[in-house]
């Protein structure tokens, strides 16, 4: 299987322009700038079927096509790269940025060209200090070679590239919160509409894409949309995909495979199987902690947008967290709830008040202080959050809670009835 997005990962000097160029790097940008209009680039990406890799899976070319075709000089276009990788279980963008920063840059510039941007801001989570440094070095190299800045490759198109570091807030991965944060505010999501293409950062037309998403662009442009459609499951689940495997497997890590990799293949072949051979698979969270969990018996599934949707869950950010039979599902869910409680921005009522409530009830159940009505309470509070919030964080906190309680109700009930844990491994809460 050909590695596409990760072809340079592990290569010596993979971060340098020299190695990147030696592997054909920046040819796509050259091609686009010398022979294609921005709209043609967008068209090609549209044709490729590329869908956003950040979590929602929105068609990338379509998103680009929402941008105005003319630039009003008073309202420059901005291209934002969402490198705020924070969804628990997800660590693929970091790999790309740290191992192949020029790929991220070339993709960003291609997107920037397609949407007629004058600045690309790469919003990278604050904790990725080294990643930001690596990107900064790559950007300096790119500027020096004329791949960024004024009159790029003599095309007449100018575009600055700026790395902007976050400072510790999961919510800033939400695109409108990211814009608020970039503007120098608390990372509060905004009411929609307007959507970013109409009025984004500083009120200007804006497109936001995930790091992995733009990393696909150079390949689509270089090899063509028709080639891209042969990777993965055309028409709607195309291209290579980075899967983040963590938890109870022998070889956790980022694995690249064509979209639609069977989950079993990821765990048992690429991941080397369960961490302990004597412990069976219990559950998998397939798309980062925000998505509904899959029980072991639901794990006959291909890892792509539509196959997982058919199973009532989501590909999300493709952060797969594998849990073996030793895991207490109450403890796992309590830990997830702790995360959302910690990360809720606090702007809107249901999420601000509901996330803490969920965590407290779960912690109680885990500690053996649950009462019979708690399970229905968890479901009810979750349902009172879902759909009633400004952004998707509320849903992200509530959906796993519903799936855990529903799919592992017996185990939750056991905690309440017996004031102890059936796994016998009651993971002490930190």
């Amino acid at each position, binding site marked *: 299987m050909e590695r596409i997005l990760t072809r340079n990962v592990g290569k010596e000097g993979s971060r340098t322009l020299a190695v990147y160029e030696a592997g054909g790097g920046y040819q796509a940008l050259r091609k686009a700038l010398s022979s294609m209009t921005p709209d043609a680039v967008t068209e090609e990406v549209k044709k490729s079927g590329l869908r956003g890799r950040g979590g929602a899976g929105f068609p990338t070319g379509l998103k680009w096509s929402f941008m105005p075709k003319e630039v009003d000089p008073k309202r420059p276009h901005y291209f934002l790269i969402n490198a705020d990788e*924070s969804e628990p279980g997800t660590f693929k*963008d970091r790999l790309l940025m740290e191992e192949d920063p020029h790929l991220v840059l070339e993709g960003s510039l291609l997107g920037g060209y397609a949407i007629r941007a004058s600045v690309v801001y790469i919003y990278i989570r604050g904790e*990725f200090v080294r990643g930001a440094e690596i990107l900064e070095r790559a950007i300096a190299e790119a500027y020096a070679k004329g791949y960024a800045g004024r009159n790029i490759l003599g095309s007449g198109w100018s575009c600055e590239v700026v790395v902007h570091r976050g*400072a510790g807030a999961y919510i800033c991965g939400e695109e409108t919160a990211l814009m608020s*944060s970039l503007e*120098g505010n608390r990372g509060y999501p905004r009411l929609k509409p307007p959507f970013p293409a109409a009025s984004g950062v500083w009120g200007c037309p804006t497109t936001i894409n995930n790091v992995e998403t733009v990393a696909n662009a150079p390949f689509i442009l270089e090899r063509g949309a028709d080639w891209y459609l042969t990777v993965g499951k055309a028409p709607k689940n195309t291209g290579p995909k980075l899967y983040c495997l963590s*938890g109870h497997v022998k070889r*956790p890590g980022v694995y690249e495979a064509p979209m639609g990799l069977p989950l079993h293949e990821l765990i048992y072949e690429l991941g080397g199987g369960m961490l302990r051979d004597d412990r069976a698979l219990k559950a998998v969270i397939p798309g980062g902690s925000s998505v509904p969990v899959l029980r072991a018996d639901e794990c006959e599934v291909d890892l792509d947008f539509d196959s997982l949707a058919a199973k009532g869950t989501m590909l999300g950010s493709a952060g797969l*967290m594998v849990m073996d039979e030793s*895991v207490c599902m109450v403890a796992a869910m309590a830990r997830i709830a702790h995360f959302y409680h910690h990360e809720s921005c606090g702007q809107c009522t249901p999420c601000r008040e509901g996330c803490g409530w969920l965590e407290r009830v779960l912690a109680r159940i885990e500690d053996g202080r649950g009462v019979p009505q708690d399970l229905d309470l968890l479901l009810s509070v979750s349902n009172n959050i879902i759909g009633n919030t400004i952004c998707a964080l509320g849903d992200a906190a509530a959906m796993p809670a519903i799936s855990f309680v529903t799919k592992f109700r017996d185990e939750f009930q056991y905690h309440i009835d017996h004031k102890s844990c059936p796994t016998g491994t009651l993971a002490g809460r930190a």
Partner: protein
Amino acid sequence: MLGPEFEKKIDAIVAKYPQPKAALLPVLWEVQKAQGHIDFASEQWVAKRLDVAPSHVHGCVTFYTMYKQKPSGTYHIQVCTTLSCMLRGSDELMKHLEAKLRIRPGQTTPDGRFSLARVECLGSCGTAPMFQLNDDFQEDLTLEKVDRLLESLP
């Protein structure tokens, strides 16, 4: 504040954005880098420099978890305890650190050498358990590895 070199750096940051306010996060980073933490006086200085209200600056400093309002230890250890790390033993790792350093998360050792924090997912789930030691990720940790690492620190 912090001298002309610092101010020059701030000017360069502000120039990267269409509005000075947008430079808030990067400017706060510079302040923290220079002083180790961000105090009220710095917040006021930043507010003035970027033409925003001091309350706005403080609102941002307290919103983002990485800005420190008080000094931390020379070695700031942030242990990821989110699900993937928990599955791989982050709770034991945290307990080990607490016992070894004799502090609880949120505290600093009396000699000011170490501070400990419980943090949420650091995006290093494939190399769990892990912590961030100052700016660097320490990954695939075992208790022995932690002991060796802490002992090796100057």
